[in-house]
């Protein structure tokens, strides 16, 4: 019933064991496994949608769809609540927890071993010059400490702008702050660029265009690191490539 937990489940078990996934897990903008979810009934975190499917196990995020999840618990369903994944370690932990619940421990360990091997190869190339990375999303959202983005950025040997400004979590920053801090690498990926909205106007601001010309620009799709998956390492690789381009 959560975009991230559903992707973990889809990684581990064959499709015929899944009766429903969150609509976000089936959305190619949010989920790297959207193609696997194709054709599966989607839910929007409502108990009404889950009840008639009579699942043996409900996997949910600790902070999402609370009303629906608590109702299901009250009705006696077997609910597995997972902490949000704020780091690569969080992904490993959650994958193991789900694997235990569905009896696919071996498969989980294989996935994690492949993941760690690739991570190790990438980390050898991590930047040593402590660059500042700024993701600048719709409405001017950027990541601070304690987020998956920050953890990936650390593995690339960099710091996020949010950490430099001293906040944790994801926040809106003004264009002024972005300009004043002159980040080295900017990720200006427009999450779900579907239909015009004011949220995307900051990308057309002349000051932002000037800034983009001066920094290294990358475009990392949100789905790569909104949840921890093996694809999260693609985000890491893009960052490391950009840092190498930036370094003299």
């Amino acid at each position, binding site marked *: 019933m959560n975009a991230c937990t559903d992707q973990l489940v889809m990684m581990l078990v064959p499709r015929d064991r899944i009766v429903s996934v969150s609509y976000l897990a089936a959305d190619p903008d949010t989920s790297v496994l959207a193609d696997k979810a194709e054709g599966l009934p989607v839910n929007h975190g409502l108990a009404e949608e889950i009840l008639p499917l009579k699942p043996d196990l409900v996997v949910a995020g600790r902070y999402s769809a609370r009303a629906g999840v608590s109702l299901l618990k009250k009705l006696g369903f077997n609910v597995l609540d997972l902490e949000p994944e704020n780091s690569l370690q969080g992904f490993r932990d959650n994958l193991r927890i789900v694997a235990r619940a569905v009896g696919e421990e071996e498969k989980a360990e294989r996935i994690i071993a492949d993941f760690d091997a690739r991570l190790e190869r990438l980390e050898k190339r991590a930047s040593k010059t402590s660059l500042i990375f700024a993701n600048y999303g719709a409405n001017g959202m950027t990541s601070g400490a304690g987020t998956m983005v920050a953890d990936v950025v650390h593995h690339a040997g960099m710091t996020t702008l949010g950490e430099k400004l001293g906040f944790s979590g994801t926040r809106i920053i003004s264009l002024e702050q972005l300009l004043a801090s002159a980040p080295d690498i900017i990720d200006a990926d427009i999450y*779900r660029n579907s239909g015009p*909205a004011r949220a995307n106007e900051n990308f057309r601001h002349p000051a932002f265009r000037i800034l983009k010309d001066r920094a290294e620009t990358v475009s990392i799709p949100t789905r790569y690191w909104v949840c921890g998956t093996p694809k999260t390492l693609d985000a890491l690789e893009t960052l490391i490539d950009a840092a190498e381009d930036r370094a003299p």
Partner: protein
Amino acid sequence: MTSTRHYLLLMLGLAGLTVIAFIGSFMVGPAAIGLGDAIRDIAQGQGDAALLIMREIRLPRAILGLAIGATLGLTGAAFQGYLRNPLAEPGIIGVSSASAFGAVLAIYTGLSLAFPLALPLLAIAAGLIAVALLQTLAGSGSSLTLILAGVAISSLAGALTALILNLSPNPYAVQEIVFWMLGSVTDRSLDHVALALPFMVLGWLLILPLAPRLDVLSLGEETAHSLGVNLRTTRLLLIIGTAVAVGAATAVSGVIGFIGLVIPHMLRPLVGRKPSRLLPASALGGAVLLLSADIFVRIITPGVELKLGVVTALIGAPFFLFLILKTRWAWR
């Protein structure tokens, strides 16, 4: 002529405050950069982040604050004078909400991406429809009818705005209701100035020359008519001027309420109740209030800026209640 001297002094004072607030607007912002940093940038010709912030972010913000404040103050004063109704104001009579609806229509259908002028033009058109509707519903009625008509128009426009934002495929559109209802000039660019300022100036040029006629009108419609004031052209010019100026302002800033209500009331006793003097004074007063409110939102909650409409409503709504009480006492 002490009253003329008083008036000149008042105008000078307001102009001085406007200049101070305008300059002040350059000095505060989320990036801790002052005017000195920008001057140093110019002098040294390197590391021009400060200069960039001044030119591309704070300059458009200050210009828009000034022009939008002036527009709201001026149109508020003009409407109060024309309708001889102390509660008239672009926000309360529904013009602002209607303009916001026009702007929302232009942005979220993608029209303004293809044709930028569609943004102010649609906002102006929607504003015109609202004023025309108001005029037919409550043109010669009491204060109460006017306010009720305004509430109805505002609600309708607000609902239509919310409907369009809800229907938008963009996931952020719904959150943007807050911007359209409460207004802000944060992170606007010189492009927005270029889109809105010419229309606002056009609106001022249409309204300001009406001031002497409004003086005569304050003696009553029949007297004004017998003194040769053409009520129909006055009304037409006022309606068009208001829709053009408020429409353009709202298209780039969202709805900013109460400035047009508060400022004329504060200044009226000081200018001797003559609309011809109240109009320019209210324009300056509106600019001072909006610029100050915009400085205020940057100072009290740095990082997560308040919307401008929150501040103007916190000042304006109690004032509005006070006005209603005053009107009730007058009726007794």
